[in-house]
């Protein structure tokens, strides 16, 4: 018997109105995220990924279909969006502060543990400008984790970093998500990133976005799996080629 999914989109469609008429953005999207799973949505730029994220986080209501969510959402953005005038500690507490839980001992202990575990405790009184890109992105993730979300939405969280930092940060973030036993949905246009990160990959077409294919990623790596080990797995290239073909096909259909 299959467990109830944490998050499910059921035949979701979405259109917007503008001066010229109706703009269809999403067409019949069905996605499920199980407890403890990392999934990726992979699609060409401008295919409506941010619309999906806005629907998932409740900022937009879909025009068709249903969305079911068991648990709270934590959002991780492309850029870290740390506030320059706050120290790292104050930044990390921002979410708790907004939800008026800053005085909750349990949450403060959790924040301290996260900062210590992910090597930011010594830097807690520094300002964001004094930290490297990777540290900033970790601080941003801790800010999200501090409010204890059940589901993490990652909106191209590495695309603003240079390629070297990017590999390191994705190692870090992956390890944190796994260790904290979170479920995550990664939205990206980067094929390798999707394969190295996700258990399941949903491939979207160009706009209006439809689901083209779903891949279950199974790689032979030494446990525990990490994005870097995944990149070296023998199956990686096969997945990459298959998905690349798929996306090129989609571009031709356009």
């Amino acid at each position, binding site marked *: 018997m299959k467990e109830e999914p944490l998050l499910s989109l059921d035949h979701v469609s979405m259109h917007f109105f503008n001066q010229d008429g109706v703009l269809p953005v999403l067409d019949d999207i069905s996605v499920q995220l199980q407890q403890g799973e990392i999934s990726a949505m992979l699609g060409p730029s401008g295919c409506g990924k941010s619309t999906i994220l806005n629907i998932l986080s409740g900022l937009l209501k879909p025009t068709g279909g249903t969305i079911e969510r068991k648990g709270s959402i934590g959002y991780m953005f492309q850029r870290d*969006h740390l*506030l320059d005038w706050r120290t790292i500690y104050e930044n990390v507490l921002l979410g708790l*502060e*907004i939800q008026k839980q800053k005085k909750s001992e349990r949450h403060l202990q959790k924040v301290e543990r996260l900062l210590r575990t992910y090597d930011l405790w010594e830097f807690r009184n520094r300002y964001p400008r004094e930290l490297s890109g990777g540290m900033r992105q970790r601080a941003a993730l801790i800010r999200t984790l501090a409010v204890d979300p059940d589901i993490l939405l990652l909106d191209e969280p590495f695309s603003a970093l240079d390629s070297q930092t990017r590999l390191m940060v994705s190692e870090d973030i992956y390890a944190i998500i796994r260790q904290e036993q979170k479920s995550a949905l990664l939205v990206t246009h980067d094929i390798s990133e999707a394969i190295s990160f996700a258990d399941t990959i949903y491939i979207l077409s160009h706009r209006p976005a439809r689901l083209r294919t779903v891949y279950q990623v199974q790689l032979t790596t030494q446990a525990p799996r990490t994005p870097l080990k995944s990149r070296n797995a023998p199956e990686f290239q096969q997945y990459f080629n298959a998905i690349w073909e798929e996306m090129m096909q989609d571009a031709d259909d356009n």
Partner: protein
Amino acid sequence: MQMITDTQDQAHAAWLLAHKREKQKIRGLQLLLLAGLLFCWEAAARLGWIDTFLFSSPSAVAQIFWIYFSNGTIWMHIGITMWETFVGFCIGTVCGIAIAMVLWWSPFLSRIVDPFLVVLNALPKTALAPIVIVWFGAGISGIIAVAVSISVIVTIISAYTDFRSVDEDKVRMLQSFGATKGQILYKLILPANRDNMLSLAKINMGLCLIGVIVGEFLVSRAGIGYLIVYGSQVFRLDLVMMGVVILAICAWLMNSLINFLEHHIKNS
């Protein structure tokens, strides 16, 4: 190793000295320039090259200053002008920023008032001064109202533009934690614009001084603007010149005060 550090220290000391010398040189030349101008003016007046009735002379300005200074009335005039400027500045800045917050809060409202703000901004506000004086009375309150009318529109427009320019994604980040509009304003929009608000304050100080002087030209019994306009009416150009010089000094002092505050707030 020691040798190298020693020579480096010496070189640094020499550099510092040269730097200091240059600063002193500039300051000295500035004073010399000022003294030279005053000397030429005085000389031209005494030698009859210029008509002292129209141009006055530094010694005449100093004399009249001494009269106002020794009977203490100069402080009254300076005090009134500064007070009017200060009150106008506070009202204009606070109201302007408050209205900008309301517009930020309601994009719908801001779209409605937009054309009105654009027209008011383009209009030379001094043209409104006579009306404002009629409305608010021919006294200190009217003069303050003129200062406010000159500074408030600029404040609204610049503060609103600054509030709007905060990264939309940062707003979404706060929303993702369930932040209310008030929390977004208080935790993001206002602190993100601290430096902009400071430069806005600097501009406002100057605008309010313009408003106060214009107001004093129109109606007043006291203040630096009154001294200038009274002096010109009775053809006492020494009084006019004195007013202008005092005004210049006051403006310079106010600007230094704001720079000082800005420096302190930024480094706190």
